[in-house]
């Protein structure tokens, strides 16, 4: 099974690819709203892609208060 670090890396790559940001510019501690310039609708888009990529179901309320990639990865990892 993947580690949390691996999961975090996959999320950074997925977000970079989908939102057209150079992968090397995203770090685990970054605020994804600010760094990706996304709103709530686009956050749902990201959520769907994460669910598909990791084959999980992640209720959107679990993202309440989450704004950095590392914490997002922890939420995803907990569902693997």
């Amino acid at each position, binding site marked *: 099974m993947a580690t949390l670090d691996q999961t975090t890396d996959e999320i950074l790559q997925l977000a970079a690819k989908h939102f057209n940001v150079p992968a090397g510019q995203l770090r685990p501690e970054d605020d994804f709203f600010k760094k990706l310039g996304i*709103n709530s*609708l686009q956050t*749902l888009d990201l959520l*769907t892609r994460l669910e598909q990529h990791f084959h999980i*179901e992640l*209720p959107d*309320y679990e993202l309440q208060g*989450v704004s950095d990639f590392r914490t997002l990865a922890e939420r995803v990892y907990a569902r693997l």
Partner: protein
Amino acid sequence: MRTFSGKALSWELRDGAIELVLDRAPCNEIGSLTLGELEQFITALKSAENEAHALILSSARKEGFSAGADLRELYRELQGLAAKERARGVRDFLERIHRVMNALDETTLTTIAAVHGIAFGGGFELALACDLIVADKMARFCFPELRLGLIPGFGGIPRLKRDIGNAVVRDLLLTGRSINAAKAQSVGLVSQVAAEGDALRVARATAAQIGKFDRQTALAAKRFIKPIPREELQREIEIFCELFTRPAVEAGLRKFVESTDPLPYLP
């Protein structure tokens, strides 16, 4: 009935199917403009039922199918009104939208919602009035009303109950969470999941298939398996109107309209 182009939606007859396309920025919020044009559509639909075999609902907005009720318009319209006038205004809107939803639910045409992006609240309810839902893999469905101190008011609860298991209905209503297309299909809500951007094409192919069969038989089958839950629909209006008078609802609406985010009640 052949074509119509309005400010919130358009329709045309194409290959035996009427295509009703929602197109009001930002995400097909259902307010007085959209409601008025839907009412025009329902009036025209009666004469069109002899010319077509299917009705496809879709959205031209990239953000999604529909974000639901136009809460900003609702909040704006309620300002300065006394409680009694507010209640009357809300009830009037609900009864009008229910007439639209019921007409879609009852039409002799086989109806298909082609959903991409978000189908939230009233947008979800519009899809639920259809016989079939085709969703692209990025679609999400949600009843966020509880987050605003309300319940779905456009007929969503009785229609959702009609289609899927009660446990899933409770989950969606009580958590207000959104579910993706794959989950929606797994619980029986969505009949087909299409590739991203391909829901309309799949809906058209499905409509073409439906068009091969005898209309009277199809209608008899539809009437048999898809009862209209009239008493529950009326009860939903009553409950919604009762809840709407509570101060928490106005507070929720105010918070919504003061935000610049499209869906401020979501993470």
